[in-house]
């Protein structure tokens, strides 16, 4: 190739460059696992000297896998691969196309005695017999007349495996391309949606601002189930996707089962319960039935017979380590009275006998003749959704399939070529078998041994 004299070309055609680039990639990756990256980096940067932090920041060490360094390495590797492949291509093509019928110089020299057979039949008969032996296993049998009294038969297998390594390298190019597409046109973000609420935008990862979605997501319900041992069993959001007020999709979202809509994928990522949920408050007037009402902070309701109004002033998940509690304010003809109602009041009384008498603020029967009780906190869940779009993903999938096919061809297949020379030598016919392979000599050895075995049997049969 004329290009070989070009210094740029020969620089990129070197396998040493490949190995150097791979080693650099390894080093950079190791550094990237020891220096906290992206979101974790912010906290880390605060704990180290500011000079060092700003140096690392400038070096893009806090996002190494999206840094100029990494990008440059991938670019060089990609160029290196292309040039190496182009450089080797003509030779591969020649080896693929050209069936050197007579083989190379000295092909039949120094053959082991097990590869040479002698018999009495003439060259023509033996050529026919050999062809008969071969055509069961080899698709194409080529034959040439060498000199006047010698014939060479040529067969081959696994010719296409010579391209396998190019397939692997092509898959790597696609991988790099797919990753770039994802990096440039893809995005990833999160959104928390409370039950009954909607969202039409998400927060992009890494604090890159908000992004509007092509639809609105409504969380109708969030369900979390646990196993007996307390480990989570199911996270499930019932979602409705709306566009221009119309439902375009409705269904459950589970971990491992994302919903894909309008090129955007939505994942069940996390959940939580909002602290400003509602309380389930019970009250009973002496001698009457218990009533339960659900109230949120600031809301109020009237007691029967206009005996007063109850307002929920505060709602606490865990008040003074004594569990959930709500503070209520009751306004009536006698004025205002305010106290806490605990969920675990029985337990609190047991642990601190007489507490409700000593601390009137903790007495649920302070407003006579009523007794209040907290039945539970109405937990309102929110679902944490991850939303992403990656236009490079289909390319990555194609690259993965290609890579596996390519690796199979590279490692488990080889181009095996076998020549059988049949020639007249001093009244006898001599059959010699020579073979070459581009890799895995053991496999070829086995194949030739089997062939030699067949020839031997055929000759023994023929002579009897």
């Amino acid at each position: 190739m004329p290009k070989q004299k070009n210094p740029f070309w020969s620089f990129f055609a070197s396998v040493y460059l490949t190995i150097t680039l791979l080693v650099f990639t390894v080093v950079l990756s190791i550094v990237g696992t020891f220096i906290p990256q992206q979101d974790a980096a912010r906290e880390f940067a605060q704990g180290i000297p500011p000079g060092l932090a700003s140096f690392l920041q400038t070096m893009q060490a806090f996002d190494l896998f999206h840094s100029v360094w990494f990008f440059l390495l991938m670019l060089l590797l990609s160029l290196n691969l292309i040039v190496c492949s182009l450089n080797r291509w003509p030779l591969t093509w020649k080896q693929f196309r050209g069936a050197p019928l007579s083989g190379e110089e000295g092909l039949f020299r120094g053959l082991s005695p097990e590869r040479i057979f002698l018999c009495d039949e003439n060259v023509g008969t033996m050529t026919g017999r050999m062809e008969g032996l071969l055509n069961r296993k080899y698709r194409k049998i080529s034959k040439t007349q060498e000199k006047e009294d010698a014939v060479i038969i040529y067969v081959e297998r696994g010719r296409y495996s010579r391209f396998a390594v190019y397939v692997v390298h092509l898959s790597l190019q696609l991988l790099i391309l797919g990753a770039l597409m994802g990096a440039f046109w893809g995005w990833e973000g999160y959104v928390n949606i409370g039950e009954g609420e909607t969202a039409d935008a998400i927060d992009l990862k890494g604090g890159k601002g908000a992004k509007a979605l092509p639809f609105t997501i409504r969380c109708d319900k969030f369900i979390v189930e646990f196993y007996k041992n307390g480990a989570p069993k199911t996270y499930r959001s019932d979602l409705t996707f709306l566009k221009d007020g119309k439902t375009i999709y409705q269904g459950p979202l589970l971990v491992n089962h994302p919903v894909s809509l309008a090129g955007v994928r939505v994942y069940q990522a996390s959940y939580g319960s909002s602290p400003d949920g509602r309380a389930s408050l019970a009250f009973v007037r002496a001698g009457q039935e218990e009533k339960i009402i659900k109230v949120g902070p600031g809301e109020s309701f009237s007691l029967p017979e206009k005996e007063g109004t109850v307002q929920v002033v505060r709602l606490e998940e865990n008040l003074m380590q004594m569990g959930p509690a709500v503070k209520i304010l009751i306004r009536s003809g006698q004025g205002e009275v305010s106290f806490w109602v605990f969920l675990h009041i029985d337990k609190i009384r047991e642990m601190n006998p007489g507490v409700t008498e000593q601390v009137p603020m903790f007495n649920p029967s302070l407003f006579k003749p009523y007794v209040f009780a907290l039945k539970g906190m109405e937990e309102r869940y929110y679902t944490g959704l991850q939303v992403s779009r990656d236009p490079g993903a289909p390319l990555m999938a194609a690259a993965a399939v290609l890579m596996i096919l390519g690796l199979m061809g590279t490692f488990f297949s080889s181009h095996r070529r076998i020549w059988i020379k049949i020639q007249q030598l001093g009244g006898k016919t001599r059959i010699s078998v020579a073979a070459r392979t581009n890799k895995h000599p053991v496999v070829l050895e086995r194949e030739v041994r089997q062939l030699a075995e067949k020839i031997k049997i055929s000759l023994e049969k023929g002579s009897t």
Partner: protein
Amino acid sequence: MTNTMILSWVTFLYFGAFVFYLFRLVFGKELWGKAAFYSVLGGLGAHTLGLLLRWKESYSLGIGHAPLSNFYESLIFFAWALVLLYVIVEWRIKNRSLGVFVLPVAFLLMAFASLAPNISNRIQPLVPALQSNWLTSHVVTCFMGYAAFTVAFAIGIMYFLRNIPLFGFIPEGDILDELMYQHAVLGFVFLTLGIMTGSVWAHYAWGSYWSWDPKETWSLITWLIYAVMLHARYVRGWKGKRMAVLAIVGFAAVLFTYLGVNYLPGLHSYLQS
């Protein structure tokens, strides 16, 4: 639980096999080699039974899943894959010298699984992220890869020790070299499959096929080291000592990918229980 009892017995069988392989080296009697191989076979049989029973027990607990879901189960499967590969190698090359290098690794994996205080051998239900069909294919391919790399590593160590008189009947360098290369290739293909199945799974579970989580990054590092090793052989014709060094370096990366990264924060936290 029957399965953990069987599996702890397997640990002793592998230890016994290791001792027998050692005796074979020291006393030079093939009898010890035979005893060792039968211990390995017995161990592998019981190991397989233990795994199957554990699988069945998980179903009778109502949380049925393949025994590949936590650190204990991964160690047990790793050892199983390693011994299986070893049996195939011994049968293929008709030489027992490799056993003295592979069996101690299998024994250590099993012993670590049974004895380490913070490893739970209980059958645990699958948390939502693990409830995927990709779990089995991901774990099986990764650990088959690790096992093949471990065999390549053992051969690499053997390569350096083959000139010590005690290890007199180690196969010659060329056979070792070829065998080491074959296992590096096997491991490489399995690791590639492991990374791919993991990526597909992450695409469904975590919302991104690649997140530069430390375990992902280290699996890439391991993959690159073996890629360098295979290129050095294919293109530059590296053989022998240099390949043995790379097999050992690669195995160090495997160990870090498997165990080391647990000390770094990341997404693959299932292994910490």
